[in-house]
């Protein structure tokens, strides 16, 4: 089956082509069916590959497709690598992808762009699979930019809305900033090691000097910052919520935005060989986690809360990468994929029921009308808050344990983030589902639980969010930590935890206590005291307002980059190019014209004048030769 790995991306590609060419003619049932089937087929193949891989001794196999770019020593084949890391991502992408495709059948059923939606979604899965399957950096880059394109198309899915289009452009351009870093990183790898194929590069990695390795690690990290929305390239992700909610779940929570984590885990040898780079990754991750969590606490749009939560959770994953806990980061990617996809899909179900309303201040008391959504989202909220024994508890505590070991300050920031996470999640949860309904009467009349195509994926994801922790039960609980063992072969420098079980339990205790305090606070404020987030900005405290405005980072970028670039470009075009550069050229013409005008005066047509000047000339020549 592994030999047929090409089928995994091929199915979505076929789905894309069919829907792209004939989607509208096929009708909703058929085009939706084809899209779902294509992902289902790829999921089945992935599952078979995953099981087969377990039987192979070295757990890694390369499948060559064709030779792509050749230029002397630079030869880049289009080839795939199946190994523990790519197989885990395969399962996440096709598995969650399948659920979200099914969910979208219901969610998008009334949209006129139904077929187009599935066309893009299938294309996205295709590129995402290329990203994780590639056996060299350039194939990863193909997927990398490809998912960026799909993200652009899906954020701007409702293309009549100018704001959405702006968000789409912002996402694409910001990602491209990262992509340039990634591209230069790839080129530096090529010039350092003479190849960009993973196996060959990693085998030779130690031959590079430390400066070069740090440079490679940082350039790749710039790429990761863009795709995985880290400071300073994170502002596109909250805006990306303009896309349909299933897109937010699949692309902007579960899969695409974790590509940066995939990339760094794939290249872990560069990071474990460069302390400087690792430190930067950890600090950026921690800072992003904290900052996004703070902003998340004051947002009132249900999707924005989740978006900042995603940024924050991604920050935690980078924190894990920075402290060398690579398999832990993948573990958190996995559990996060479960509960965050669920949260977004649940939010979609809520928005669906509320006829498009996204403001949590106008919700409330939805638990009766949406029992399944309520229950499943509740489980996901517990999972993300890190309550035992839900999945998030295990993955997050492992991150915090590693952080504690590496640097207490990082652990502290991580713990504060967890506290805030539990707070803003339950704030959202209480405001949405508890207390009493605050929407219009018409909305109230319209409230309904979503159709089966939407609730079944919710239920499946809820089961995964609850039980996902089983993938990595730590030794302290007498578990075998399957995911860490499974990923062992691809981690070059192991970093086993030396914490005693007592310390680990203590850390877990602290984390749980912190989360409970946060939940209790949220309960007290939003459930018991019925406090509503301020309707009016004037009612906010200064810091709250500052955070509500996302710390004015967008304005800062506009002020320091966008506007100066526009002004500079205008000046360049209108003044420099037109007046100076072209003026100089035109000036030459003017001077020549003027000179010929002057010289023309000599051609008077008067023979006497000609004879006179001839004589003058002869005299001058005679004088000159005598003097000489």
């Amino acid at each position, binding site marked *: 089956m592994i030999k047929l790995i090409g089928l995994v991306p091929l199915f979505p590609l076929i789905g894309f082509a069919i829907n792209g060419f004939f989607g509208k003619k096929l009708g909703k049932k058929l085009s939706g069916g084809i899209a779902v089937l294509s992902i289902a087929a790829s999921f089945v193949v992935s599952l078979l590959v995953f099981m087969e891989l377990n039987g192979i001794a070295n757990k890694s196999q390369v499948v060559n497709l*064709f*030779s*792509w*770019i*050749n*230029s*002397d*020593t*630079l030869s880049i084949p289009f080839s795939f690598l199946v190994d523990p890391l790519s197989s885990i991502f395969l399962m996440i992408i096709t598995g969650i992808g399948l659920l979200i495709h099914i969910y979208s059948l219901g969610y998008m059923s009334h949209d006129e762009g139904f077929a187009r939606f599935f066309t893009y979604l299938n294309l996205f899965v295709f590129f995402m699979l290329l990203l994780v399957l590639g056996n060299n950096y*350039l194939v990863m*880059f*193909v997927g990398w*930019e*490809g998912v960026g*394109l799909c993200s*652009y198309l899906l954020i*701007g899915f409702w*293309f*009549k*809305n*100018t704001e959405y*289009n*702006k968000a789409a*452009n912002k996402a*694409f*351009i910001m990602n*491209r*900033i990262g*992509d*340039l870093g990634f*591209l*230069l990183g790839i*080129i*530096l790898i*090529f*010039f350092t090691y003479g190849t960009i194929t993973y196996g060959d590069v990693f085998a030779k990695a130690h031959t590079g000097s430390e400066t070069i390795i740090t440079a490679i690690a940082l350039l790749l990290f710039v790429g990761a910052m863009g795709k995985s929305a880290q400071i300073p390239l994170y502002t596109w992700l909250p805006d990306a919520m303009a896309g349909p909610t299933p897109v937010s779940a699949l692309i902007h929570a579960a899969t695409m935005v974790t590509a940066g984590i995939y990339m760094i885990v794939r290249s872990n040898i560069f990071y474990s060989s460069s302390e400087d780079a690792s430190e930067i990754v950890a600090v950026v991750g921690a800072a992003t986690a904290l900052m996004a969590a703070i902003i998340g606490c004051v947002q009132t749009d249900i999707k924005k809360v989740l978006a900042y939560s995603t940024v924050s959770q991604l920050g935690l994953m980078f924190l894990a990468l920075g402290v060398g806990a690579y398999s832990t980061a993948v573990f958190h990617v996995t559990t996060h994929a479960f509960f965050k996809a669920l949260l977004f899909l649940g939010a979609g179900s809520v928005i669906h029921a509320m006829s498009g309303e996204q403001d949590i201040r106008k919700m409330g008391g939805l638990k009766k009308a949406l029992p399944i959504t309520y229950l499943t989202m509740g489980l996901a909220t517990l999972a993300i808050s890190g309550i035992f024994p839900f999945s998030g508890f295990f993955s997050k505590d492992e991150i915090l344990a590693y952080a504690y070991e590496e640097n207490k300050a990082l652990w502290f920031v991580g713990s504060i983030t967890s506290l805030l996470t539990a707070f803003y999640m339950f704030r959202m949860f209480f405001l949405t589902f508890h207390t009493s309904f605050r929407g219009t009467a018409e909305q109230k009349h319209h409230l309904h639980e979503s159709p089966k195509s939407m609730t079944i994926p919710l239920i499946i994801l809820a089961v995964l969010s609850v039980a996902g922790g089983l993938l990595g039960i730590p030794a302290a609980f007498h578990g075998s930590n399957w995911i860490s063992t499974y990923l062992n072969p691809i981690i070059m420098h192991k970093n086993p935890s030396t914490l005693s079980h007592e310390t680990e339990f203590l850390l877990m205790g602290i984390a749980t206590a912190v989360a409970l305090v946060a939940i209790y606070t949220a309960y007290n404020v939003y459930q018991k005291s019925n406090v509503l987030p301020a309707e009016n900005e004037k009612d906010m405290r200064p810091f709250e307002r500052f955070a509500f405005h996302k710390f004015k980072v967008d304005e800062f970028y506009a002020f320091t980059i966008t506007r100066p*670039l*526009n002004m*500079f*470009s*205008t000046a*360049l*075009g209108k003044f420099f*190019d037109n007046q100076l*550069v*072209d003026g100089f*050229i*035109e000036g030459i*013409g003017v001077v020549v014209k003027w000179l010929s005008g002057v010289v023309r005066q000599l051609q008077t047509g008067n023979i006497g004048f000609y004879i006179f000047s001839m004589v003058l000339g002869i005299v001058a020549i005679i004088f000159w030769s005598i003097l000489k």
Partner: protein
Amino acid sequence: MLTGLLIIVPLIAAFLVFFLKGKNARIAALGFSVVEFALSVFAWYQFKSDPLSKQLYLNCTWIESLGVNFAVGLDGMSLLMVLLTTFLVPIIILSSFKTDYERPNAFYGLMLIMQMALVGVFTANDGFLFYVFWELALIPIYFICLLWGGENRARITFKFFVYTLFGSLFMLVALVFLYHHTGMQSGIKSWAINDLYQSGRSLTETQQGYVFWAMFLAFAIKMPIFPFHTWQPDTYVNAPTQGTMLLSGIMLKMGTFGLIKWLLPVVPLGVANWGNVAMILSVIGIIYASCIAIVQTDYKRLIAYSSIAHVGLIAAGILAWNQQGVQGALIQMVSHGINVVGLFLIADILFRHTGTREISKLGGIRNVNPKFAVMFLIILLGSVALPLTNGFIGEFLLITGVYGYNAWMAAFAGLTVILGAVYMLRSYQGIMLGESNTVTAGFGELAASDKAVLIIVCAAILVFGVYPQPLTDLAEPAVKTLLMSTK
């Protein structure tokens, strides 16, 4: 022989077309250009079976007393450029089917003469002949722009003509200078390219410097490279669409091709001393033109500036003078040619359907014609070099090549990755997305000929993006040989 045929067929075709009238002229022109394309594909086939086949070379005496020969030949590089030319000319002719030009016989006749000169430039192996074809190519395009151009055509075309001619004269001086230094031992002067190579390399460092700048000026103006570019935007905007396509799609490649074949191998010391200055100009041009493109309001002018940016990167790759750089340049020359023809056709379609190219007046065309939107998007992606489009292969190799020359240059040149996305996406949003307005609501369906051209362009973008092997097979060995000869 085959090469000679490739030059003579468009010339004969031009004469025949000249005697036809009305629609027959353009149909005949299309027919002949397709024949020419078939001929070049046959030459490619010949080349594949035997790259040194005698069929591909022609060498007969022209002006004996001056040592001038009519020497033409097809190596991998020339073949690539000839294929680009013969592929694009029929497409360009097809793209004109919805526009009724006055005196079509003259219009299409001139286009075919231009094709002959272009094939001549790309195949000449004799310095004198190269110069003759080089100048010959200017004459038809001058008339095309002058007679069928837009409002300010007389002034703008005059500037374009004088500016490029000015550069070419420097090249002529350099070529004559080189010619005079040939045959130092044998005493026999020659214009043959290999003799000129030898002559150039035997010059002193200072002399090589002069030759470098004289030739570089001619090529830099033709491409054009910053700061010699100011004729370009006006000319591109004012020329009739097909003229713009010829200029940007094929003619500017004369400059880049000239760099590869007629400059860098000739004066290695000159390049060693001055290449970095030229490189810096090229890289500045990338950022400079991209920035200006961002604030353009006329879509055609925006593409004109984007073309300066793209060609700057190509020049930088050539000046890096390593395998990836030069090979990337050749591949990007083909890709850019294809993509820019698509983009200018889009500008033309916009104008024909709405009467304006002002981005701010357009918008929402996607609602009216989604198929056009898709094809537009594919061409746009090709031109911002998204992977799996043709633009990516070239751009990746080019940036790699420039990196091999200097990492910082590559970082600056790489800004095209970001800036290109900025101006392209902004214009796409402005033109295609949003709600449609009174100008765009009646956009309507595309004409069959336009659709055909866009489909061919899109197909080429995707095919060469996924499978660039055919281009690589031609470019890679040719570049390797060339680089070996200068080491």
